[in-house]
């Protein structure tokens, strides 16, 4: 029986593309599985809720009640993939809490598979945050997102050691296009007949990467 995946997209830095990855992944899972539960833990950044209001709900980790509301749902093995868009302001508190309550160990017991997608940046805050995650998260559950739009050039060597998922940069006009609240990646694939367009191929490439990620989960869960 396949595990229930919980994708946590995170960075201690704002504006590195977390919500973009969360949108892409949510739409991919919705297309593939017909269902997804996305959680928006953002107060100060562009919000996943604005893009995918039908499948997204807000959550917070400011107080214990908020943590209960969120984590008690993430730990359920209901077969529905979860996507967490974790705002930079909640990064420290979230991982402090998951360490304290033994989230990873309990998830393994309950057939739930957290996957941490760390969106890399070149600054010192990110450089400090990554080893903290390495300490808490097993290597095969910690994936670095190399967003070419943010990391122009090589990733820091420390972040290259594990699995890396690359997202190529789009030209500015296409970036503006996909940033519109009404834009849907899956909708574009369905409606745009010319599959040779740059955006078409960019979306397909990212969806393929996510499919590979899902397959690796299936293999490990079997």
């Amino acid at each position, binding site marked *: 029986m396949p595990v229930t995946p919980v994708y946590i997209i995170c960075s201690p830095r704002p504006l590195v593309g977390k919500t973009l990855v969360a949108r892409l992944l949510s739409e991919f899972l919705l297309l593939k599985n017909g269902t997804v539960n996305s959680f928006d833990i953002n107060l100060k950044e562009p919000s996943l809720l604005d893009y995918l209001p039908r499948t997204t709900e807000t959550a917070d980790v400011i107080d*214990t009640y908020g943590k*209960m509301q969120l984590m008690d749902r993430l730990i359920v093995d209901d077969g529905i993939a979860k996507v967490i868009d974790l705002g930079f302001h909640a990064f420290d508190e979230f991982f402090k809490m998951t*360490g304290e309550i*033994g989230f*990873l*160990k*309990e998830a393994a017991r309950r057939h739930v598979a957290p996957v941490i997608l760390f969106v890399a940046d070149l600054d010192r805050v990110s450089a400090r945050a990554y080893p903290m995650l390495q300490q808490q998260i097993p290597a095969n559950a910690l994936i670095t997102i190399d967003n070419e739009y943010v990391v122009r050039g090589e990733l820091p060597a420390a972040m290259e050691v594990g699995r890396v998922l690359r997202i190529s940069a789009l030209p500015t006009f296409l970036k503006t296009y996909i940033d519109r609240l009404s834009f849907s990646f899956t909708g574009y694939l369905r409606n745009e007949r010319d599959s040779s367009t740059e955006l078409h191929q960019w979306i397909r490439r990212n969806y393929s990467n996510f499919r590979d990620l899902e397959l690796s989960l299936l293999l490990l869960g079997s």
Partner: protein
Amino acid sequence: MFAPKAGDGDLPIAPAVGGAVQGNSMAKPVVIVVGADKGGVGKTTVSRTLLDYFSANNVPTRAFDTESPRGTLMRFHPDITEIVDMTTTSDQMKIFDTLNAASPSVTVIDVRAGLLSPALASLRDIGFLDAAKSGQITFAVFHILGPSIASLDEIAETANFMVGAKYFLVKNFINDTQFFQWDQATYNSYFHRIKDATELTIPKLNEMAYEQVEVSSVPFLKFVANKGKDDEAANYSFVLRGYVRHWLANVWSEFDRIKLTDLVGSGKPITRGGEK
């Protein structure tokens, strides 16, 4: 997806909760008094962690709750707890005349607020403290301190009775107090006044987690194991259970540090998940 790393949230699992366990019947009796003259500092909470710790370490234990007629400790550990009025001779007999006869080798007494000094005076009067001094009985006092000078003032008063006893000064962090550590002169004048006292730190437990255990009226161990009063499956929040598990592991690591199992004559503590 992965095998979790060691030490990221192991349960401090007990092999038996509240049930009868076998111990060393030849061991000399151990009496642990948990008290403070000030109220609301967490005496019963510490008593509960002690009972859970002994249960997890297979140390047969009985408890007396002196909050007569209603006992808080009794509510959480009804199987091994009896409510007594320590000011009456009959109940004093019930506790101390049965020390050698009773099968559990460890007796935990949760002394209600304001009764610690009178209780110790009574123990002195009946010759109990002399018996401890001569090594016939192992006697330990967990003196729970609150974040106030009044609470610290009790130290000197209580220390007068501590000859022959193991004296533990328990800094119970019921809030974000510093116990005057920011003022070294004040801190030293209280905590370094008693030569043989051992300091113990009980960290703060998340408020909602504490309240949820209160509502559930079960031992901390049962709460962590997601069980109800009669061992039936419960549905406590995973987050709150996680907070309690983490906190309890930290409290027990303090008990391990002071070698509490050695004190009660049961050897090394059982191996548990390493959560510090």
